């Protein structure tokens, strides 16, 4: 008798069980039509197809590699493609200590990204400088670029990074399509000296 793990006729998984559907936004539907706000549709599309740009400088980057890998699998959240060109990405994930000498580089990467763009600071160092309260370390990346979500931890576990990513998804899904043209947003960028 053959052990179960050598079963040559495994049960086929139901393909429908493996597909996760995004929740439909609020709206009015009927037979053959569905009406909702444009911003909801745009937000739904954006939040489920974020392209992260990993800016990994230290141990938080290693945790992010675990987050991307098969066990935690960031692509379940619509980020199948991790881009390494700022011009193609819309989510800057800063993971690790940013030295003061690296700050202009990070800022340049942020400027190269096209709108709409979001930033997530992963880990204590990126959020506040962490234990490196030192002459050479930037005390939080929010000194040079605006940050949307902070993930605490030193380093945070992949679950925490995923939680931060889902917080970003919530922000993206709820964002008004006019936000990036608003005076408030322009004032925010101007406060960082970014046009």
């Amino acid at each position, binding site marked *: 008798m053959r052990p179960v793990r050598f079963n040559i006729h495994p049960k086929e998984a139901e393909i429908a069980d493996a597909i996760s559907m995004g929740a439909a936004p609020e709206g009015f539907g009927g037979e053959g039509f569905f009406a909702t706000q444009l911003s909801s549709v745009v937000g739904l599309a954006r939040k489920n197809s974020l392209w992260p740009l990993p800016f990994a400088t230290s141990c938080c980057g290693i945790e992010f590699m675990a987050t991307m890998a098969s066990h935690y699998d960031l692509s379940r959240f619509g980020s199948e493609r991790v881009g390494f060109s700022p011009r193609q990405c819309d989510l800057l994930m800063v993971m690790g200590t940013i030295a003061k000498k690296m700050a202009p580089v990070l800022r340049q990467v942020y400027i190269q990204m096209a709108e709409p763009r979001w930033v997530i600071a992963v880990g204590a160092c990126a959020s506040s400088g962490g234990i490196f309260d030192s*002459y*050479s370390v930037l005390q939080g990346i929010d000194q040079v670029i605006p940050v949307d979500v902070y993930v605490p931890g030193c380093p945070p576990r992949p679950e925490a990074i995923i939680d931060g990513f889902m917080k970003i998804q919530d922000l993206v899904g709820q964002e008004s399509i006019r936000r990036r043209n608003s005076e408030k947003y322009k004032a925010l960028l101007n406060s960082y000296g970014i046009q």
Partner: protein
Amino acid sequence: MALQNEYIQAQLVEKFGDQVTGFSTSTGMLAFESPKAINLKVLQFLFDEPSLGFTFLTDLCGVNYPDQVGAELVVVYHLHNLKENIRIRYSVSTSVNEPDVYTASKLFESANWMERETYDFFGINFVGHANLKRILNVDEMDYFPLRKEFPLEDQTRIDKDDEMFGRG
């Protein structure tokens, strides 16, 4: 007969007399000092003398002793004889008000970046260095961070509660 610390010391004393001082040995490594004015002569002698042959500069760094008045800054040379596998440590001290030391970069190519680093962190002015500018820190930095008079912590922070960090 392998090269002995006693022999190195005797050679140095014979050449430089009472200008080389402070001979000591810790964990088998000979250390000594001299006035900063003759640092190149001493390095050149250790390099050229065939029986010594210290032709490799392992390390060059600075030290700050704020309590040694008139000799607050020290430049330390770690030299290596590759044939005999003997290492020695040589240091010169200088006043913080006039931190000029002759550059060793003409003798050792490796001294170039190490002197830039020492300048970067301690502000020691290596006279004759071809390109003495900051190497590791940001160019805008306007102080020398490893001097003891400057706090190690970043002074631009306003969000950290000093009492929580033991400096209230």
